[in-house]
């Protein structure tokens, strides 16, 4: 069984982003980029399925500019067997990404597709579920545990009230939450090996997908500012301030 893992190139989670002065978007010049953390967890899970003998091949796929090759190489170094870049210089929105991935799915016929639950730039949290709808597959979102046996996937989901377990028939879609696993680091030999692993490049047009944007971002503004308040010297002073100044406790 093949496992397909869609990965997104995003700003590194540790970067404090700046908004362009003209409000047209986020300034990404000379900013450190990385594999979306949830996608790294997805790759790790796929590699573990392979190590456990459940998966036969792990394929990483990314939709984006040619520089996404860097992130795909990282995935190859982390244990993916091969990679596919669907190259487009206009930013593909979640629905378009889901359609593109469906075309890849139709070609590759994987048994499981593991997404991240959310990309940390757009914070959409949509693509996995949209892909599941387009392919008619069941979905186990926000997974903190995945076990695959007898043609089924049991997924433990992190939900608002606690945990929920669902059983899905295969093929299935899983989206990762933070506690699914702890991704490994790529070793130097594996980074070297990754350079020789196959990385195919295609385009939305070749896959026959219309990736036209459906919504426009009119502007991006900074959030309402919040400035540091004061330091209090003691618990007594804190309680006094909360009671008599902020008036948030009785």
């Amino acid at each position, binding site marked *: 069984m093949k496992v397909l893992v869609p990965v997104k190139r995003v700003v590194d989670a540790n970067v404090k*982003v700046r908004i362009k002065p003209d409000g047209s978007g986020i300034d990404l010049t000379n900013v450190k980029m990385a594999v979306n953390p949830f996608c790294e967890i997805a790759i790790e899970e796929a590699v573990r399925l392979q190590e456990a003998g459940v998966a036969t091949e792990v394929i990483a796929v990314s939709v984006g500019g040619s520089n996404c090759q860097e992130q795909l190489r990282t995935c190859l170094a982390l244990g993916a067997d091969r990679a596919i870049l669907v190259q487009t210089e206009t930013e593909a929105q979640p629905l378009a990404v*889901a359609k593109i991935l469906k075309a890849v799915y139709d070609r590759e016929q994987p048994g499981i597709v593991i997404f991240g639950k959310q990309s*940390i730039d757009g914070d959409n949290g*949509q693509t996995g579920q949209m892909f599941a709808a387009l392919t008619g597959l069941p979905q186990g*979102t926000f997974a903190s545990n995945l076990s695959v046996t007898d043609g089924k996937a049991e997924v433990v989901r992190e*939900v*608002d009230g606690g945990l929920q377990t669902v059983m899905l028939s295969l093929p299935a879609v899983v989206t990762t939450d933070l506690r699914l696993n702890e991704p490994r680091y790529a070793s130097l030999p594996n980074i070297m090996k990754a350079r020789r692993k196959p990385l195919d490049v295609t385009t939305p047009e070749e896959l026959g997908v219309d990736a036209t944007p459906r919504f426009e971002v009119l502007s*991006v503004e900074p959030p309402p500012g919040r400035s540091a308040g004061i*330091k209090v010297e003691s618990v007594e002073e804190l309680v006094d301030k909360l009671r008599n100044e902020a008036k948030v406790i009785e």
Partner: protein
Amino acid sequence: MSVLVVAEHDNSVLRPVTLNVLAAAGEIGGDVDVLVAGHDCGDVARSAAAVGGVSRVLCADAPAYAHQLAENMAPLIVEVGADYEHILAAHTTTGKNFLPRVAALLDVAMISDIIGVDSPDTFKRPIYAGNGIATVKSNDAKKVVSVRGTGFDPVPDGGGSASVEAAGSEHDAGISDFVRDELAKSERPELTAARVVISGGRGMQSGDNFKLLEGVADKLGAAVGASRAAVDAGFVPNDMQVGQTGKIVAPELYVAVGISGAIQHLAGMKDSKVIVAINKDEEAPIFQVADYGLVADLFAAVPELEDAL
């Protein structure tokens, strides 16, 4: 113009976040109908009908909807939502699960996690962990939107007398099954609805030490939350995580104890009205957003705080 709001509930109680979603629906304008999809969920439908401003409650009561599995919910919402221009749900783990699936079946984009309505097709939503607020215009005929509860003041619960009608057929995709829930039981107010939240981080050192926070929470009627580090370390369960990828809270008072203030944590709490930070490191970034900062060892300060309240 009309809006369909998918109710958030557990088959017996209408969850308060639905009232925040209804507020967003009210800002969009037009008739607002509510879909209650569940099993043996008549009480929920009646509660929804009693909310002011609701025109009609559509109730899809069938075993296939008992656990609101996305595979079954999505075709139902597509069916029931056929004549609506807007379909809204809360940006909770339930809404996030089925709504993108609905959007894809309708071949429209989804606008996630809105905190403002500029016009019926233009919305405000946070991106990059709340470091930017994007104004987004949908060009699709139908708008599928998830709503951040803390972005909208709830509509008053009551004063309505909408009709309740059965709606929708039973869609059972037969590809997924509910196995079990392990839901945290707590006497405390729900995190996202609490007036006061006190959260602990890695500085708490153990799950046992969270008892210190509970002592304070008892006195303030507060909910208890946590940073990701505290959840990852196994101190407390996942449903307590506040942040970009956990719960978003905006209480009157947020008390961060032994939490450094990483951007991902701030994303979940920086809209709180008053923020207090207790941390032994005076350089901790949490102090940059705290209205009142106390540089102290939490193991001394928290018991003292409990006594002082």
